[in-house]
Structure formats: structure tokens, C-alpha cells
């Protein structure tokens, strides 16, 4: 190639490079201006003091100290992580029968079974959560039915507490777990399970020793998704747990919009954000290790 030709090629590729920047620019501005900069500002004010709703200049660690050392916030964090873990575990347990049914079903039926799992995802979350309020409320389906049967004198407290939160959260996020585990189960070579049966293993043994280990990537991916979604969940805790409940998202909401203590609300948000990012980072490692192992 002559020098001129190569110079023209270089210039053309440089022009392509500038064109690419212009094409990317609107999307980059969108994410930077509406996510990165606001989140950065949020981190900045989490190190500020406030007084009567006013944010004062100057640097302080007070907000983080009150969150990480105070007993009240320790309880909020502990209960939030606990509830997210319980919801994740409940999703894994409930997802398996459905996922294995879908994976083993003939194609026509599989489509329908899959549809019934995915369709609730298209229904508004506030509406789905409201359904649980009708079922679990003081005068809800369960309490009314039980008192009609004469079993109950006093209504059971099933909502406005962690029971409602966990039941509602499990239902809202269960489809993600089912879809994730189904994907893993469909990929399993059936001959492995047949060999296990031929070698004399019972159904339970085959499930525990063959199916479950092979389904682990789906379980891990689904668990990470559900756990992190539940950590940040707001609709279900607000409606089924109520504002009296100890939950990070509800505490952030109360601090920010009811008590107007933005620095503390943002400090708590930063703790939540770090937790969610850590969960994703751990997942990346887990998946990598699993792929190296398998």
C-alpha cells in the first residue's frame, strides 16, 4: 500500500471514530446526566450535615456513623437482608416444581406453562401487591374465611408486617427465578438422569445428585437477581409492610419525603447501592468459578 493510500485509510477510520462518538453522544449524555451525576451528588450530600431540612456545607461522617453504629439502623439493615434472603430461598423452593414441570412438558403445553409464569410480570406491581392486601388484610380473604369457618376469634396479623412483605415479595419476584431455573433445566442432557435411574438411584437421589448440581447456574443467577431486586424493593414493603416496618427502602422514603433529612436518606441509599453492587460483583465471580469448574 502506498503512503497516500494508507494515510487516506487512517483518515477514513478517524472520521469513523468521530462519527461513532457523535452517534453515542445522546445516550451517553442521558445516562451521565440523569444517573451518574445525580448519584454522585447524592454521595456528596451523604457527607453533609442538615438542620431543619437545610443542607449545611462541610464534611461529616455523622450520617454513616449513625447508620453503621446505631442500633436502630443495624436492625433495619439486618431485617432487610434477612427478608431478602428469606424471599430468595422461598423463590428457589417454589420455582423448582414449576421449572421442572415446564422443562419436562411436551412443547405445546410448555408454551402455555411458560406463558402463565411470564404473564404476571406484565401486570402492574402495585396491582399485584394490592391483591395480596385483599388476601392477607385484617378483613381479607384469609381472615374472613377462617372466621366464617369459626376457627378464629381475633383476625390474624398477616399484613403490615414481615409476613405480608415476604409473601408479596416472593410472588412479585418468583417469575424471574422460575424463568432462570427453567433455562438451566432445559439445557440438561436427559441421558444423565436416565443413567442415574438405570444405575439404581431413586427419584429424590437423582434430583439431589444429578439435576440440582446441573441446575446451579440457573439457581445462582436467579438468586442474585431476586436477592438484589428484593434488597431495593420499595412497592411491596411500602404497601404490605407499611411505614412502621424496618426496611431500608421504606426508611429512605421516610427520611427523605416525610422527615426531610436528605443527608441521612442519601447515606442509607449509598449503603444500599454498595450492597447491591457487591451482590453483582460476587455473582460475576461465582459464575466465572462455576464455568471454570464445569
Amino acid at each position, binding site marked *: 500500500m502506498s503512503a497516500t493510500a494508507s494515510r487516506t485509510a487512517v483518515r477514513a477510520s478517524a472520521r469513523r471514530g468521530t*462519527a*461513532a*462518538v457523535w*452517534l*453515542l453522544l445522546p*445516550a451517553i449524555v*442521558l*445516562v451521565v446526566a*440523569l*444517573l451518574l451525576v*445525580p*448519584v454522585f*451528588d447524592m454521595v456528596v*450530600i451523604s457527607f453533609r450535615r442538615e438542620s431543619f431540612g437545610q443542607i449545611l456545607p462541610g464534611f461529616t461522617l455523622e450520617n454513616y456513623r449513625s447508620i453503621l453504629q446505631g442500633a436502630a439502623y443495624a436492625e433495619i439493615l439486618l431485617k432487610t437482608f434477612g427478608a431478602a434472603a428469606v424471599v430468595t430461598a422461598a423463590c428457589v423452593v*417454589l420455582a423448582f416444581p*414449576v421449572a*421442572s*414441570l415446564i422443562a419436562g412438558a411436551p412443547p405445546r403445553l410448555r408454551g402455555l406453562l411458560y*406463558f*402463565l409464569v*411470564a*404473564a*404476571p410480570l*406484565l*401486570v402492574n*406491581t*402495585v*396491582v*399485584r401487591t*394490592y*391483591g395480596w392486601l*385483599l*388476601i392477607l388484610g385484617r*378483613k*381479607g*380473604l384469609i381472615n*374472613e374465611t377462617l372466621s*366464617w369457618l369459626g376457627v378464629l376469634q381475633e383476625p390474624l396479623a398477616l399484613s403490615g408486617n414481615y409476613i405480608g412483605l415476604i409473601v408479596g415479595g416472593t*410472588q412479585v419476584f418468583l417469575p*424471574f427465578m422460575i*424463568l432462570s431455573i427453567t433455562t438451566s433445566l432445559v439445557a440438561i442432557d436427559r441421558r444423565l*438422569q436416565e443413567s442415574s435411574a438405570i444405575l439404581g438411584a431413586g*427419584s429424590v437421589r*437423582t434430583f439431589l445428585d444429578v439435576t440440582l448440581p446441573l441446575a446451579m447456574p440457573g439457581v445462582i443467577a436467579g438468586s442474585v437477581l431476586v436477592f*438484589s431486586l428484593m*434488597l*431495593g424493593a*420499595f*412497592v411491596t414493603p*411500602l*404497601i404490605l409492610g407499611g411505614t412502621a416496618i424496618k426496611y431500608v*427502602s421504606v426508611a*429512605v422514603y421516610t427520611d427523605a*419525603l416525610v422527615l426531610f433529612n*436528605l443527608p441521612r*436518606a*442519601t447515606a442509607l*441509599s449509598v449503603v444500599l*447501592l454498595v450492597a447491591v453492587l457487591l451482590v*453483582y460483583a460476587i455473582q460475576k465471580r461465582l459464575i466465572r468459578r462455576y464455568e471454570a469448574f464445569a
Partner: protein
Amino acid sequence: MNGSRPFRVARVLAAALVYGFLLGPMLVVALFSFSDKSFFTFPPSGFSLRWYRAAWESGLFLDPAVRSLALAALSTLIAAAFSIPAALALRRTRSPRLRAIVEFLFLSPLIVPALIVGIALLYAFNRLGMVDTFAALLAGHTLIVFPFVFRAVLTSVMALRQEWIDAAEILGAPPLRSFRDVVLPALVPGLVSGAIFAFIVSLDQFTVSLFVTQSEQIVLPVAIYRYLYDVNDPVVAAVSTVLVVFGLLVAVAIDRFGWLRHLGGTGG
């Protein structure tokens, strides 16, 4: 997948219970909306459409519903307009490292909880005096739905065949013509499926909308929550039933095209 008979029977029973758990709440909402009493009774009694009429006549839901639909349509359109050039540019990027960084940046609104987006935007819009404006809602929703459209468009863009574009160029088509007649038609499936999910995600979005609005610019899920908080009679059930039916109709429609499978990675 087979196993012994009792094992299979147990599995089918367990799966049926889980399906009941998933779908039951929506059924209860629909049944309650036709009740003729304002409270829950067991066994259910009566049938009436009065709550649907009351919902309509209250005038509390129509404006928010129209606003929610406009918001979903506009934010999806803007996200699509930003996604197409960005995805095409990423396709031409030679450095895989740069591509991974930009892709991560564009998908990051999926990772950050809506609550944090909400509080960060509340603070930002507050300083700009934009709280409780449609522009604030539109900005927040566009950010939230962007990754859904971008991801779907990027998949279509990566499947583009360079030969088609080269052929158009060799045949003398100017870049804009080749974009319109070759590139754009190939992107339609990704664009449509991404747009449908973006639309649904925007309609569903409660948290960000709650944080950036006060009373003027209420969207439908927030209107439902407020009514639930203040009054809580079957009017909420009537409005909710309309949304359940809408969601299921959309599900049937996209199932026809086999797009329901893309739902696995949705979140928030």
C-alpha cells in the same frame, strides 16, 4: 425428568399450588371489583358494576391514566431514538474493552435500584426547580426504559450482515438511503420487542414517579396507591382489574410473536 410415579404426582401438585400462588391475587382483585359491598365478605355475595362506574365518575384516575400512557409512549420513543445510533456505533467499535465499558454504562440503569434513581433525581430536580413537572417524569422514565430498548436493538444490530450494507453502498446508495432501506428494516423486530417491554416497564414504574412528583403530575400507579391509602374501597379493585386485563392482553399479543422468552432479564 421422569422419575417414579409418586414423585411426578407430587411435582404436578406442587407446581399447581405455585401457579395458584402466582395467579391467585389477580383473580381475587377481579372478583372483588364485582362485589356489591364495599368490604370483603366470605362467601362472596352479589354482583355489581358500581365500582367501575364510581372509578370513572370519581375523575381521580383518568388524568393519571392518560399521563401514564403518554409518558410510556414518549419515553419509549426517545429511548429508541437514542438506542439506534448508539447500537450502530458500538457495532463499529473495534476495541472490545471500550465496547464492554460503554455497554455496561448503558445497562447500568438496570442495576441501580429504582429507589436510588428516585432519590438522586429528586435532589437533582429540586435544585433545578423541576420537581412535579412532566419533564422530570419524562427524564426519569426515559432513563429507566433506555436499557430495555438498547439491549433489544443491540441484539438486532449485532445480527446485521455487513454484506447487505456493503452491497447497498456498492450499488450507489447514499448512507441515509442504505440506513432507511437496509439497516432499519433489519432492526424492526428488536425495536418492536424492546419498545413493548419499555412501554410496560414505564407503565409499571412507581418508585421514581413517586419521588419526582407531588400532586400535579400523578401517574396511574401512584394514583392507585394514594386511593388505597386514603379510601380503600373496591374502586381500586375496579381500576386494578382493568390493568390486569390490559397486562394479560399484552402478554397474549407478545406471546404470539414468541417474545415472552426475552422477559427473563427484566427487573425492577
